[in-house]
């Protein structure tokens, strides 16, 4: 490494990841909703392959997500993981948790400020006082819930039981329809849970947070401000960060790494002292590949909403940090081929410090769970990304061609994140990276995220962002 460079480091105080199990909301995912409308018989088929909460907890990739199993340990576990469940698995991990659908409904209700959520009163009262936190509940008997659904509200089921209704906020504005608002509120409550949890774990008072950046993917706004946003402020409010300002940073799947760079920059500039970077789950992506899973006789694996929260602060001696001066962005002039992306997002930041690709101990890339993507023909995304990096190392003469597999094995990992867009995109590895850095297993990691800007039909461009994490003091 170039010894003449004075590193710019920002402390990573902690991270928390959560998965909200939402089997009865899978039907409202974009793909299932469209396919079931066209082929109603798929509704029953989907329902028959939904997982229980205990099966979701014991699913090995989820245990990696919350930190109870390392990615390396996952690669040694027999597949299919959905059959080889982890015995004795718990819903709490060292840096994450899984919460059930009942919790999610309760949180949706508690966070609702616009009379969107109505719960069936017998079901709600059965849940007990623990579920009565937050705002006064809107309750109706079952026939009242059914009447709301008949008028267009989305039915909230718990298995076969109708337990609530989610209403639209406007009769004509498509941006305030029930399905859009359910997506948005689900993102808000799952992100707020991750934020509350990371702060509780660090014993940090929510009022100490200066700024919250949300990189959730939802478009919050009405018909005159579609995607106008600042979900961050709503999340900060929900998590009790009364002194925080906030704003959204969006760049498709690359959003979280951009948000980290922006948050770190606010700290480096002296504008803020503590910044939280958060994201809620993507309800639209639930069941995205459910047809492939059904065809293969698998459970519908895209049944969880992923969320995370990272707390950034001033760097501390002997603690993990991000190298703000390593941040790299994919420029407009750049190409979108895998090689071009790897050159810009891996070689460019490393070159600043005279580092080679082989000087990075671990790469965090798009860490989609291959058990979800391979059956649908989308391939093993992390493996593809790691092979590209290895091929680049061969081209540069840093390794021999016959060392590519070793490069992939030692510097990469198996994917374990649900296909939640922004969640799998490198940021999901940060929790394990912090542990590996603290334990001395690695001396650095390079996080690389890519974004698919072309999906919005405004440009053909791709996008990406990357940066190094390491221990402060190295």
């Amino acid at each position: 490494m170039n010894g003449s460079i004075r590193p710019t480091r920002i402390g990573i105080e902690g991270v928390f990841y959560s998965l909200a199990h939402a089997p009865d909301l899978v039907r409202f995912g974009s793909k299932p909703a469209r396919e079931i409308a066209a082929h109603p018989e798929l509704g029953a088929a989907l329902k028959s392959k939904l997982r229980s909460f205990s099966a979701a907890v014991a699913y090995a990739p989820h245990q990696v997500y919350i930190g109870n199993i390392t990615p390396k340990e996952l690669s040694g576990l027999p597949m299919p993981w959905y059959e080889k469940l982890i015995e004795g698995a718990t819903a709490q991990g060292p840096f994450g948790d899984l919460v059930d659908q009942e919790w999610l409904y309760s949180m949706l209700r508690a966070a609702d400020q616009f009379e969107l959520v109505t719960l069936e009163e017998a079901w709600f009262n059965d849940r007990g006082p623990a579920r009565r936190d937050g705002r006064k509940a809107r309750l109706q008997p079952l026939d009242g819930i059914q009447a709301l659904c008949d008028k267009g509200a989305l039915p909230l089921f718990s298995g076969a039981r109708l337990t609530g209704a989610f209403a639209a906020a406007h009769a004509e504005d498509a941006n305030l329809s029930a399905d859009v608002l359910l997506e948005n509120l689900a993102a808000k409550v799952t992100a707020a849970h991750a934020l509350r949890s990371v702060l509780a774990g660090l014993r940090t008072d929510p009022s100490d947070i200066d700024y919250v950046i949300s990189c959730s993917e939802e478009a919050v706004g009405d018909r005159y401000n579609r995607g106008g946003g600042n979900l961050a402020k709503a999340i900060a409010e929900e998590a009790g960060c009364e002194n925080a300002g906030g704003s959204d940073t969006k760049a498709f799947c690359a959003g979280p790494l951009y948000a980290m760079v922006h948050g770190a920059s606010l700290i480096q500039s002296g504008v803020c002292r503590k910044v939280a970077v958060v994201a809620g789950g993507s309800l639209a992506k639930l069941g995205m590949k459910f047809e492939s899973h059904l065809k293969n006789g698998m459970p519908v694996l895209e049944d969880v909403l992923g969320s995370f929260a990272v707390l950034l602060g001033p760097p501390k001696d002997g603690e993990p940090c991000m190298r703000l001066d390593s941040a790299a962005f994919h420029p407009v002039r750049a190409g979108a081929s895998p090689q071009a992306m790897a050159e810009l997002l891996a070689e460019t930041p490393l070159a600043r410090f005279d580092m080679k690709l082989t000087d990075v101990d671990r790469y965090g890339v798009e860490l989609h769970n291959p058990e979800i993507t391979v059956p649908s023909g989308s391939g093993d995304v992390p493996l593809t990304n790691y092979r590209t990096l290895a091929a680049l190392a061969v081209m540069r003469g840093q390794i021999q061609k016959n060392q590519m597999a070793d490069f992939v094995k030692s510097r990469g990992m198996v994917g374990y994140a649900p296909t939640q867009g922004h969640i799998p995109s490198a940021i999901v590895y940060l929790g394990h990276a912090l542990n590996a850095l603290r334990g001395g297993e690695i001396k650095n990691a390079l996080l690389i995220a890519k974004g698919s800007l072309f999906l919005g039909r405004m440009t053909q461009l791709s996008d990406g962002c990357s940066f190094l994490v390491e221990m402060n003091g190295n």
Partner: protein
Amino acid sequence: MLSGKKVIAIGERDGVPGAVIAECLEGAGLEVVFQATECFV
């Protein structure tokens, strides 16, 4: 053999972009009637 054929080229974010596929196919004499890059995850 391929010259004059019409093709649709769908690229993938983590693989080969649609525009790259289209350029190769056009170079081989095919007519690309539609190309796009999608993200399947």
